[in-house]
């Protein structure tokens, strides 16, 4: 491609680079601020004196987090949740997306099923009925409560469905002519072609399980079963300094752990795994998302 190096073009390029740099800085600075807070002493952070560089430099916040059993327990819960939840989500997505991607000639009932799934994306029965159901099944306080109710993700199904649709019909037809069964077509042909889509869904599923805190809050009766974000939520929630039972010693205890530097450290640690995985999976995920929708 031959570029036309006009004055206008060069000006644009300069402007573009500057703009993008500014935007990137705008996004990075807050993270640096949080990082600085995490390495500062509580007094400076609480006094709002820390900007991009730590003051009263200390590792106290990180030492607190590392010692904090509750933090790591919840981290472990989230890991277990990921191990079970992501594959489950992936399997269910494929099971639904593949048949739904067939046209109505091949699969007449398709359109009814599609609306059955879509309806669910919009209509939510609410927390109470879902809780009562999960409780009556006996899933409360188990990893399954974090994984089964959200096992089917309709958004993911729509994405993968569109991706399958994008695979040229000829591939399937020629396979059928050669006498291949549907499940062979799925496993030997479509799935390998769908690697980018699988990576995409995996990433989305990972993000959803990593970030969500609602299920942990509702379905777990014990803090040791809280997943990471539920635990962090309870830490971040504005805990008004309230006097319980006329006992002032409780306030002294609270004082020791109320520094905003601790909050910053916990947040930062909980971001690290995602910061590592995201760029890595990025290259797969871009291709998968696209082909699905562009080819309609």
């Amino acid at each position, binding site marked *: 491609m031959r570029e036309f190096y006009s004055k206008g073009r060069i000006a644009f390029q300069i402007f573009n680079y500057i703009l993008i740099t500014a935007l990137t800085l705008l996004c990075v600075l807050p993270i640096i601020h949080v990082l600085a807070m995490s390495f500062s002493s509580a007094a400076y952070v609480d006094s709002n004196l820390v900007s991009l560089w730590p003051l009263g430099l200390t590792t106290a916040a990180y030492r607190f987090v590392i010692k904090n059993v509750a933090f790591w327990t919840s981290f472990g819960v989230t890991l277990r949740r990921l191990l079970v939840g992501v594959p489950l989500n992936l399997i269910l997505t494929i099971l639904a997306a593949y048949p739904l991607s067939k046209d109505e000639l091949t699969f007449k009932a398709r359109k009814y099923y599609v609306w059955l799934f879509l309806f669910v994306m919009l209509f939510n029965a609410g927390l109470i009925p879902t809780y009562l159901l999960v409780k*009556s099944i006996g899933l409360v306080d188990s990893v399954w409560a974090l994984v089964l109710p959200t096992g089917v993700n309709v958004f993911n199904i729509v994405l993968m469905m569109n991706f399958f649709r994008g695979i040229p019909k000829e591939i399937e037809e020629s396979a059928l002519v050669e006498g291949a069964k549907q499940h062979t077509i799925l496993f030997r042909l479509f799935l390998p072609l769908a690697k980018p889509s699988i990576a995409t869904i995996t990433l989305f599923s990972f993000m959803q399980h990593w970030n969500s805190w609602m299920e942990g809050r509702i379905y777990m009766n014990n803090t040791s079963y809280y997943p990471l974000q539920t635990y962090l939520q309870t830490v971040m929630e504005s805990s008004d300094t309230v006097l319980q039972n006329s006992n002032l010693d409780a306030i002294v205890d609270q004082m020791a*752990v109320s520094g905003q530097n601790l909050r910053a450290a916990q947040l930062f640690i909980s971001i690290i795994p995602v910061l590592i995985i995201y760029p890595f999976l990025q290259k797969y995920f871009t291709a998968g998302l696209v082909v699905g929708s562009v080819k309609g």
Partner: protein
Amino acid sequence: MNKFFKTVVVLLIGCMMLNLAACSGGNDLGNGSSSGEDSDGNLTMKIGYAYDTSFEYKGGETVENNTWTQLYAQSGIDLEIMYNVEETQKDEKIAQLIMSGDYPDFLDISSSYYKDYAVQGVFADLTDYFDKYASDLTKAYYETEYGKMALESAMLEGKLYALPTAASGNDGLPVLWIRKDWLDNLDLSEPTTVEEFVEIARMFSQEDPDGNGQDDTYGLVVNGKEVFHASGGVEGFFQMFGTTLGTKEGNIPFIEVDGKAVYGGAEDEKVMEALTIFNDMYSSGYFAQDFVTSGEEQVFSALSSGKAGMAFGAMYMMGTPWKNALETQSDAEFIAVALPGVDKDSWGQAFYMAVPAKYYALNSKHQDNEEYIKAFFEVINLGVQYLAQPDALSQEDYEKYNGKDDTYTGWQCALAAFADPIKNLNALKKHQKALETGDTSHLNAENLRDFETMIVYVDNKDRRDELDEGELALFEGGLFYWSVWGAEQCSYQAISDMIDNGKLLHSAYGVAPTDSMVEYSTTLDTLAKETIIDIISGNKPISYYTDFLELWNSLGGEVITEEADKWFQSTK
């Protein structure tokens, strides 16, 4: 991939089917409603715990094994934990369990939910059993002034559905916190009138009280985000004028005016006088222009960084800001004084309302099971015995059940946590005497523990920079106690002064809120907050307040005022 895939799917479905098969109605989940007796003859009680994230067990104790679980076991009660969640989730967790029909035997209910649940039949009726099973100590506890008030608040049409903790309104009285070092720098004395207070606010804003040559301070920090709050809330300001507008633990405040119970903000002349001055202060820049975005975090930050010199708030609010301030301003000193008054004789009109914090109740399914009722009262009795009367306990018993650093976790493990409602007031005199004479023999075990922490601060006041992390933590705890009990002008002294002065605004409504009160209080509270903020920041004229009162009445205020007065008249 094929085989693996199929196996996984089959396994998953299998799990689901199995779980579904175990599904039954809502109530019965195996070990739920059996007689609850196990082999050693102990009764099993289903309970729950809710702790703050900062809470830790000490001395190797655990949630299942600590001095309190042992005490209960000795008394024939084994515990089965149904929930152990973070404190802020206690209410929603209990609500969930109640909804599902399977909830604890022993319940710890917050005051705002008690009445609703009682009406819905969640709790057992204890009226006829109180005399039989409450110990003498417990009965004495409920015969004290505060105990009586608390018990009455738990009565619904003559029936008792829970035993509450007795509370006094002492701890909740707002005081006026001031930077003493700034007063000294400007050669000022503590304010006793509103006029003096405003002048100090002006000087703190304009006369460089921290002497650093920069115009970086202002007089007052106001919590405009929560508006009514223990840290920087506006309650204290309005109470200087003998009025009170904000809800207290969700209750709309009622005071007595001319023999009737009225809304705390009903005297529009007084309120408008307060609003005029507040608005003047805002326009003159005596407090932050963006105060409406300042929540507790921002209030603490302004005090910690030496931006603000005064704040209204609870007696326990200054620990964190003061300890933070010392990092950057080594001379920082906070004192607390009684609320100033419009004139020299009307100071100390803080609003006094005792709201029991917790209501302890028994699951209504045990209504006819005397074993459980007896066990319920046993838990209560033990709580009263070991927590509500520290002076009568031996040092060892005190430590075992109240707590000792590194050995016993203490009172937080108890299911029913009672306390002497005026212990903090009593502690004031004790601590002051001990500081003066150096003699600690009159201190009970709890006082002694607090005193020893306070001494760490007193002894190390001038060598803060030399302390290591561990010592600093104790130092900061000691500083907190010093701010409450130790200093000559500590916050509890201010409270004690206001109590002695006898001008407190007492709440004119003393029992559980009525249905209408519960229904309207949020709307009325929001309305009050919006109005106050609008008038203070000048978005609405002072005269708008009369419109507010009309609106307030029409949105349910009139109805609830009638109900409150009805009760008030009945107590005369």
